């Protein structure tokens, strides 16, 4: 690692001020992606600003059909919560137990790894990303591989999830990293159906519109028989684009069956 200092302010305003003053400063959440990145010298921040001492960013609350999860809430706590069972199951399947004790939902969404699970959960539930400046609909938030709508000194403070009537997340694990080779989150609320896919597309997490239309007409696995998404899929040593496109169909049908 290159050399840097770590600051851990206890006020969110101080974090934002530090980021505005120093554009090479980087926010440290749980560090489960950032620390390995720093070890490989893929980043050289001037300083890390830790969110660990800002208590109001932690915790889960439910009110009026909306579950609000603080950005610094670790995966293990979301897994144990159960207010939205599909989301808790998703959180309980991220990485391994040690990663789930450190990694945070805000960190995952800010990083927007194309194979991460949480982006599928946020998009698949139509969540709202709450930041220090505004509220961003998940549909407007994800902008491609590791790209989001977040501006320079903007920090996620919470994520608001509307409680669905039914939802499920099914992923095909990449067994070494336990990231999703392909993961599909399906939810239904009234007549509104959402299908969000992670791990598959060259453009990052996406909503599979054709599948949503088919499921809106008939919410059953058979409605997706033979369907695969269009668009450029990721091809790497773990799977070809054709393989991933096929997996999207399979995972989507399994997710609908699990709803």
């Amino acid at each position, binding site marked *: *690692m*290159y*050399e*840097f*200092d*770590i600051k*851990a302010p206890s006020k969110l305003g101080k974090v934002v001020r530090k980021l505005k003053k120093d554009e090479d400063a980087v926010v*440290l959440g749980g*560090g*489960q992606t950032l*620390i*390995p990145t*720093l*070890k490989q010298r893929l980043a050289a921040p001037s*300083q*890390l600003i*830790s969110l*660990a001492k800002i208590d109001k960013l932690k915790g889960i609350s439910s009110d009026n059909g909306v579950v609000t999860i603080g950005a610094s809430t670790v995966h*293990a706590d979301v897994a144990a919560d159960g207010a939205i069972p599909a989301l808790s199951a998703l959180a309980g399947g991220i*990485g*391994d*137990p*040690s*990663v789930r*004790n*450190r990694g945070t939902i805000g960190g995952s969404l800010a990083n927007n790894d194309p194979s991460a699970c949480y982006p599928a959960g946020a998009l698949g539930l139509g969540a709202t990303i709450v930041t220090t400046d505004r509220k961003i609909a998940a549909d407007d938030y994800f902008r491609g591989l590791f790209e989001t709508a977040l501006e320079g000194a903007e920090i996620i403070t919470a994520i608001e999830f509307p409680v669905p009537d039914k939802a499920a997340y099914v992923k095909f694990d990449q067994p*070494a*990293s*336990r990231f999703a080779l392909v993961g599909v989150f399906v939810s239904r609320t009234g007549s509104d159906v959402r299908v969000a896919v992670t791990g598959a597309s060259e453009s990052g997490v996406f909503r599979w519109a054709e599948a949503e239309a088919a499921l809106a007409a008939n919410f059953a696995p058979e409605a997706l028989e033979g369907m695969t998404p269009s668009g450029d899929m990721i091809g790497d040593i773990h799977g070809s684009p054709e393989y991933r496109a096929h997996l999207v169909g399979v995972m989507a049908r399994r997710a609908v069956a699990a709803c």
Partner: protein
Amino acid sequence: MTQVSMTVNGKAVSAPAEGRSLLSTYLREALQLTGTHVGCDTGQCGACTVHVNGKMVKSCNMFATEADGAEITTVEGMANGDGSLGVIQQAFQDHHGLQCGFCTPGMVMAAAALLKDNPKPSEAEVRAHLSGNLCRCTGYHNIVKSIMAASGQDVAAVAAE
């Protein structure tokens, strides 16, 4: 360098650390607690697993300064007060739960975290819980057996097929 203080295995400790110092480096180099092993240093193998405020974490994937004020337990804290092996350690010895032994500190700490929350885990639960702990001798069957035995369960049927 900043002074970092924490409680390790019940003892208050304090030592200077750089911002980039990992908790694993702090434990091994500043405190000379070399039972915590650094295997991959990428956060994948779990040999460096310790408990921070009762939760298992990979000490190579956390900065020392982040553990300031925390309660840490390492494998050195797993033996009984008189120095004899703790229940989990004894079970690893009895059931040949280690071959080269490099992953063992992490396996023991992972096992302790599991049994604290789930005193009688099923074989499947043990295997799922170990998803972040790699044994490059591939001695998993006996590791699972050791953890099941440490929980007081019959292990005759574990990995029998």
